[in-house]
């Protein structure tokens, strides 16, 4: 039960989220008060995110079930919250340079405010240990993201994207809440810890448990765009503003993977703290295979369909589906090594994916198109940008010496260590397929139209600096990856408490 000291401690651990709420309100107020500056809410948002990051850093080492086990504060959550925070920060900076957004609107206040709202929802989702809390958090982030996807509302394809997003999102969260209600009926509790205890102590009918688990997975699968809940991904990614596409592909997925891992580890698995032994399964259902099959389907579909895409945003959408597949491989082994691999991969994925989307945004600013053909001769037209794009694409493929290689290495080794050799082979074959479409872009940039008479593209030094700030770490962490690996290994224990 909740007493006053629990409440006080919970509130003190809720500081990052509180900061985000205050930032949300301040951004709105300043936006209304100061009419001259278009980006004032953005500056407030950046300040708020930095302060939230400071409070988050203060929580290092905390392991606590806050608010009577509604939320869990642990180092696993802290790692993913940092990823979400960093990508929010980077996305807000990207938005300052987006012509697409600035041409469409006189005011961008709501845009930055909604990004903060979405960050808040994701923070809650990462920490949720109660099924209703998970539902509320998913809706908080989704509702903001539906609006953001269609923020340029005069653009036909953006409004189409938001319609598809809201319909698919609402259906999958509807199915999820039905699954939650079934799990509630089976176990008599909404709290993941109590569900775990109940499943460990009692025998539950297998079919309803499997069905409710799959229904709940549909909600998470939609967030991480896993097959068969991926249908919205390509359309929404193509239609939404580039900044939002990039945001959905990184932060939203990080929150989805966080809740997926926490749901399994806290709710459905009997855990042995402090070991990297495989987590013990509860309720006679082999969730390993359920997730492994979804992972294979996800990455294969993502990679194969990406082969014949001609729009960069759509191509990167399918590539992000494929990456969700690789990450699910690491989830399917269901041990601490897998968690650590997911964390390592996510950090590098954030750098390279955001970088690739920023290059797409810059090129679209100048050429008003996202077609792959437009990238012909980019190596001549803007050498720095083309080199950085090459780094991001090689990193996405997972070739050395980039950070993407390290991420894939850890994912594959966690899979092989658990004895799923066939899964690792499928993963490697998929990476080979992905090489084709990533290299196609590099070929367009360097080997097509080399003697073109097209003019050089001039980008402002500050945008080039931002691209370099993402490209250099993508390369650097490929050789010097120890700090990230250590940080991930420190964070891999999901707090299950007793």
């Amino acid at each position, binding site marked *: 039960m909740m007493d006053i000291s629990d409440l006080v401690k919970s509130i003190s651990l809720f500081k990052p989220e509180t900061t985000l709420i205050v930032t949300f309100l301040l951004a709105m107020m300043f936006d209304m008060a100061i009419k001259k500056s278009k980006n004032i809410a953005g500056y407030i948002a950046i300040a708020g995110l930095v302060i939230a990051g400071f409070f988050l850093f203060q929580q290092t080492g905390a392991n606590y079930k806050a608010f009577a086990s509604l939320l869990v504060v642990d180092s696993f959550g802290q790692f993913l919250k940092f990823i979400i925070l960093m990508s929010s920060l980077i996305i807000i900076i990207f938005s300052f340079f987006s012509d697409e957004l600035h041409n469409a609107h006189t005011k961008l206040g709501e845009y930055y405010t909604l990004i903060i709202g979405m960050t808040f929802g994701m923070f809650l989702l990462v920490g949720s240990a109660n*099924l*209703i809390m998970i*539902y*509320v958090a998913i*809706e908080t982030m*989704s*509702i903001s993201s*539906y*609006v953001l996807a*269609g923020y340029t*509302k*005069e653009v*036909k*394809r953006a*409004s*189409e*994207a*938001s*319609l*598809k997003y*809201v*319909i698919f999102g*609402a*259906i999958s*969260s*509807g*199915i999820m*809440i*039905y699954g*939650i*209600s*079934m799990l*509630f*009926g089976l176990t*008599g*509790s*909404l709290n993941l810890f109590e569900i775990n205890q109940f499943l460990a102590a009692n025998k539950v009918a297998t079919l309803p448990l499997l069905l409710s688990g799959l229904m709940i997975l549909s909600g998470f699968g939609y967030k991480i765009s896993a097959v068969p809940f991926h249908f919205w991904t*390509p*359309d929404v990614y*193509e*239609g939404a503003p580039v900044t939002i596409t990039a945001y959905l592909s990184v932060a939203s997925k990080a929150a989805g993977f966080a809740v997926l891992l926490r749901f399994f580890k806290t709710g459905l698995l009997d855990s042995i703290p402090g070991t990297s032994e495989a987590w013990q399964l509860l309720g006679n259902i082999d969730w390993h295979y359920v997730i492994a099959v979804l992972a294979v389907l996800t990455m294969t579909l993502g990679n194969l369909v990406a082969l014949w*895409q*001609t*729009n960069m945003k*759509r191509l990167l959408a399918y590539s992000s589906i494929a990456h969700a597949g690789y990450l699910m491989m690491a989830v399917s082994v269901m041990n601490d090594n897998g968690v650590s691999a997911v964390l390592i991969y996510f950090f590098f994925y954030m750098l390279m994916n955001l970088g690739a989307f920023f290059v797409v945004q810059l090129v679209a600013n100048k050429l008003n198109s996202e077609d792959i053909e437009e990238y012909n001769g980019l190596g001549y037209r803007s050498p720095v940008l083309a080199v950085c794009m090459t780094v991001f694409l090689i990193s996405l493929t997972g070739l050395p010496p980039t950070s993407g290689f390290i991420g894939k290495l850890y994912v594959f080794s966690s899979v092989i260590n658990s004895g799923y050799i066939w899964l690792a082979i499928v993963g490697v074959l998929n990476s080979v397929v992905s090489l084709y479409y990533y290299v196609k872009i590099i070929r367009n940039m360097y080997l097509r139209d080399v003697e073109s008479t097209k003019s050089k593209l001039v980008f402002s030094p500050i945008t080039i600096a931002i691209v370099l700030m993402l490209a250099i770490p993508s390369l650097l962490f490929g050789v010097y990856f120890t700090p990230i690996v250590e940080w991930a290994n420190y964070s891999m224990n999901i707090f299950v408490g007793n």
Partner: protein
Amino acid sequence: MEIGLTHYLVISAILFSLGLYGIITRKHAIMVLMGLELVLNAANINFIAFARYGGMNIEGHIAAIFVIILAAAEAAIALAIVLNIYQNFRHVNVDEVDNLKG
């Protein structure tokens, strides 16, 4: 015959299926959203029925209230987006909003 838990669960399963059927078959965006409400209310009936007959605590009732609130919020956003679709496309038929494909 006494009305028990099973009756409520059957009703909610029927509602859920009808909701999904409506979402899949209807073309009009508003009708799709109505199908969605059926799905959410099916979950609500489950929550309340389990809380009442399963001998469980108040959590079920609270969950149902949360679902109702979020359904309202989601419907508001969805309707705003549908309105925006109407401004751009001059209709709200979900299957004809298909500029993005591939």
